[in-house]
């Protein structure tokens, strides 16, 4: 508090030469360090250290022990990774999440951009419509899963409406349909958030572009593709990234909606396997190895998405 003596200093910090040494080293308001210290400690303890710990663990023969007990946990190189890659259940879970992403990500981008640009232009019932789209996003997955179980169960409303068209075996116990139903569920559940992001992005598209498109005689569809879509490209990149990460994080839905990744592992996700192997079966080293592989996959996908969206721009 005593470090700030002159009000002009914030602007003039670079110019005025004779300054106390401490200030040159810490910046003009070292108090900022104090203010950010709790957050910084939090990040180190909850993000930085655990990440390093996870990678380290994946190269050890790591097992649970009572707190404070010194046990020997040998370095085993890539053994955990080899075990993971030889496990057909792991391959299946990655295939499942691939199916999930192929359905969920494009559907999310298309629906949220279309609904957001439609919402952006309505005048009446604006508040009602927006709130309707946000409700699934703010409600707890666990609660919403309950009603989907009811809707999509064997004798549920969906099958009753479909009558003879109902799939056999029913949705959630059908190995072909379990994963697509989960993908639809998550798309529906999260869409409100992405609509919110696109609505924010749409405010930044210059109005003049729409006006000149209108003077040029472009129709609604044409304007959408040549003004709106390019105008919100940064948001699209963000939506792609977040929906991919959310998809890779899939756990609650296969755990509850299909009773632990059923039928027969057809809807198991990598995170579900991490839970089963790491915590239920007590192999945190193997689970960490799955986690590291998963993150590498997500990074590769994110990199490709970034490239694709960027290329389109140039």
């Amino acid at each position, binding site marked *: 508090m005593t470090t700030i003596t002159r*009000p002009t200093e914030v602007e003039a910090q670079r110019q005025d030469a004779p300054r106390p040494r401490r200030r040159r080293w*810490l910046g003009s308001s070292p108090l900022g360090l104090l203010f950010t210290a709790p*957050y910084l400690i939090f990040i180190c303890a909850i993000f930085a250290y655990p990440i390093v710990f996870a990678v380290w663990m994946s190269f050890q023969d790591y097992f649970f022990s009572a707190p404070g007990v010194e046990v020997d946990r040998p370095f085993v190189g890539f053994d955990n990774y080899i075990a993971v890659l030889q496990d057909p259940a792991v391959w299946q879970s990655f295939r499942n999440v691939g199916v999930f992403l192929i359905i969920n990500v494009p559907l999310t981008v298309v629906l949220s951009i279309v609904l957001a640009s439609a919402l952006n232009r309505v005048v009446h019932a604006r508040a009602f419509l927006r709130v309707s789209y946000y409700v699934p996003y703010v409600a707890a997955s*666990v609660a919403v899963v309950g009603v*989907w179980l009811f809707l999509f169960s064997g004798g549920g409303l969906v099958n009753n409406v479909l009558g003879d068209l109902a799939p056999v075996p029913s949705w959630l116990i059908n190995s072909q349909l379990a994963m697509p139903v989960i993908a639809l569920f998550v798309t529906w559940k999260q869409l409100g958030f992405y609509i919110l*992001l696109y609505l924010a992005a749409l405010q930044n598209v210059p109005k003049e572009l729409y006006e000149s498109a209108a003077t040029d005689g472009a129709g609604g569809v044409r304007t959408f593709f040549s003004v709106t879509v390019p105008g919100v490209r940064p948001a699209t990149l963000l939506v792609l990234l977040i929906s991919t990460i959310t998809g890779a994080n899939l756990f609650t839905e296969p755990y509850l909606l299909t009773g632990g990744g059923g039928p027969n592992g057809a809807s198991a996700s990598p995170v579900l396997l991490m*839970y089963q192997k790491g915590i239920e079966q007590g192999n*945190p080293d193997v689970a960490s190895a799955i986690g590291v592989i998963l993150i590498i996959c997500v990074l590769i996908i994110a990199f490709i998405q970034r490239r694709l969206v960027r290329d389109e721009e140039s």
Partner: protein
Amino acid sequence: MIRFGMVLRYILLLLGALVFLFPFYYMVVGSLQATPDSSPAGAFPAPGNLTLDNYVAVNERINLLQGLVNSGIFTGGVLLGTVVFGLLAGYALAVLSFRGRGTIFALVLLVQVIPFQLLMIPLYVMIARNYGLSDNYLGMILPFFISSVAVLIFRQYFLQLPKDLFNAARIDGASELRILWSVAIPLVRPALLTVVLLTFIGPWNEFLWPFLITKEASMQPLAVSLANYISSIAASTANPFGSLLAGAVVLAVPVVVLLIIFQRQFVSNDIGSGVKG
């Protein structure tokens, strides 16, 4: 032609809204049915088939009040940490200039894209095994203690305040703490509400982490005890879907009510700018 487009837009949006709202309507209807009716007619409440028994039934198996209290303590702890320390960090990043500010801001952005699944196992080992904080509120709260999204939103709001305001206060001899408390915070009160609402949703709905760390039923947030009910107990009750949906209504109602009351605070620009940094 323009009229036609407008009508079409409204039809599309209303149909969409129906798809988004119907499951919630159906959740409430289903939770009130004495015998589950999954025929199309069952989607409408039948006067003879209405009961509150399902709420009683689910409350006998899982203590709804205890679950709500646990969810409340978990959420309250996260809100406290986020509002106090998140605000301080956001303020410092926006207003104060100090060494390492750029690095810390980069960290805030980086943290947004780190998925929880990589942290799940090491955090479980650390918090549950090494520190013995399983079945403990502190253990539940710790990984979510300061929301990074909140830091970004706070920073964004403080950036929008005119610099002259702070300079004027400094000329008057106000200390940095005093400027923060009597000048900056009163001006960002709307942001405070937005952050509280957004942060509330996270821990209230969080399932995976409290599920990993609580085994004792009396410590479980409602989302966890309801999930356990769905996956194991529900089948053994008289009306499994009815009681399950009754629990779901209790879990979902607080957040949905908050959304409806404070819908203006879910303003897209604030949240969008927060997420975009």
